[in-house]
């Protein structure tokens, strides 16, 4: 048996989407050029439900919403800034306001294609989508988690967003849909690591007395899982480590702990433009999202406990 090369989340998505659209006549795949070569197998014989709209992202979302109005289950795909940010009013009105469901699948995440610069980065996608009601947001941390996330999303009737990035953890985890998975035990703080930031978070917290909770889904946020993992201290200490805009999930954590004295450290991608290219690892380091940066932030946070 030959060794398996690391699987790519986008290819896993495309293979699963092709299987869904060829096996289920209610599933449609709508895209805007991006990843088209990966969908070629589904075009054959299912051209009516495998639709390339060209470089037309407003139409991408609106047409998908129209498909949903007729009862189909659209899977809608392009780069994250063009899917969520460019077509935002279409999401607000043609999806939410029309009260239809569909599945958005983006690639690119915060800075996958770092050398491409700001135009192809969207660290704020989840924060923006979070201004709309009823979205389930999946941030799978490994290619092998993509298939089940997509199948779960397509089997539902609601609104789902799968945020895929090339960065991934060294292994996949099995997590019940919508739940947090406790992967490390500790008594001083609960650290929630979202999607592909689990691995650097585990490296960062080695030797620290903290729990680490893995979140492959951030909306709805597993508030019960978070509360159950909190140490029984007078003031609960919570750390968010998110591969998107820092503070994206602060609101939901704050709501979840409204009755608990707590402190929250929210790590994520900074709001300021870096105006730098380079590799994703350069950006992770610059935003303090590599293991060293995460560890430094958490250590500082825990050391300031009680300081007034």
């Amino acid at each position, binding site marked *: 048996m030959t060794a398996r090369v690391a699987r790519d989340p986008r290819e896993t998505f495309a293979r699963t989407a092709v299987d869904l659209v060829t096996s289920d*006549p209610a599933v*449609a795949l709508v895209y805007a050029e991006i990843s088209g070569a990966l969908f070629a197998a589904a075009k054959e014989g299912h051209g*009516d*439900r495998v*639709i390339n*709209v*060209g470089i*037309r992202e*407003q*139409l991408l979302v*609106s*047409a*998908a*919403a*129209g*498909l*949903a*109005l*007729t*009862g*189909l289950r659209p899977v809608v795909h392009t780069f994250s800034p063009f899917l969520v940010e460019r077509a935002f*009013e*279409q999401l607000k*009105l*043609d999806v939410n*306001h*029309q*009260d239809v469901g569909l599945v958005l699948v983006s690639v690119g995440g915060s800075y996958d294609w770092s050398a491409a610069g700001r135009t192809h980065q969207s660290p704020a996608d989840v924060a923006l989508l979070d201004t709309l009601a009823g979205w389930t947001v999946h941030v799978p941390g490994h290619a092998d988690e993509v298939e089940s996330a997509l199948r779960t999303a397509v089997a539902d009737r609601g609104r789902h967003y799968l945020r895929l990035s090339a960065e991934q953890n060294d292994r996949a985890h099995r997590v019940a849909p919508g739940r947090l998975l406790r992967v490390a035990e500790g008594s001083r703080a609960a650290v929630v690591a979202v999607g592909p930031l689990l691995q650097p978070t585990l490296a960062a917290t080695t030797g620290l007395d903290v729990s680490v909770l893995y979140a492959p889904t951030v909306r709805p946020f597993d508030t019960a899982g978070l509360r159950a993992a909190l140490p029984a201290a007078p003031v609960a200490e919570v750390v968010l480590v998110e591969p998107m805009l820092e503070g994206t999930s602060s609101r939901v954590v704050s709501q979840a702990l409204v009755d608990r004295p707590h402190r929250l450290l929210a790590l994520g991608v900074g709001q300021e433009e870096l105006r730098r290219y380079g590799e994703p690892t350069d950006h992770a380091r610059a935003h303090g999202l590599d293991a060293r940066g995460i560890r430094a932030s958490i250590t500082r946070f825990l050391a300031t406990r009680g300081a007034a």
Partner: protein
Amino acid sequence: MSLTTNPPPPTYGYADLPRLMSLMTGDEKHTAAATSTLDVVWTLYEAVLDVSPTTAEDPHRDWFLLSKGHGPMAHYATLVAHGFFDEEWLAGWGSWDSPLGLHPDRVLVPGVEISSGSLGHGLPLAVGVALGLRAQHIGSRVVVLVGDAELDEGSNQEAIEVASALGLDRLMVVVVDNASASYRRPGVLATRFAVQDWDVETVDGHDRSRLGVAMRQTTSRPRALIAEVDSR
């Protein structure tokens, strides 16, 4: 196509429309827009579309999408006349307890296929509806009403191009043209569609007989009907 053997007859006729529309008050700014669409909307329900209160949820119904959502009075009045909902709803439109807004909400109003108000959404949605019906081998017609100024929204251009490229021959756009667009060049409306190989025809937007003939016609291409009305 025919869905039902005995569609319920309209509750009211064309002559009742002025009275029905007079029940709705309070949005003076938009009154002209409402009446500019009246003959088109009435004729669609009277002589073109196969949809009724009993088939409003039928997968095989014809679809009407009012994209120009700021003129819903003619649509509301026509839906009442055809029995989609009660006349009593009209008087309170726009109020807290009314399902009828100054822009329509499909979730609240029987017979309203899309919620509209922000311009440039109806035609792109209609492209998706037409694609969805075709994928399900349903030959229903999809008719979307837009305003001439609304076509300035670039989202329409995306839809016009793709509707033609994908051969959506069951899709028809009716452009109610009251010459309200800024920076308008002569003939631009028809040209926008013709250059994308749509079937284009221009008619008097108040001639219900000609509108009926023109709107019943279909070809092997998506169709655009420019319905000219008095300028705003």
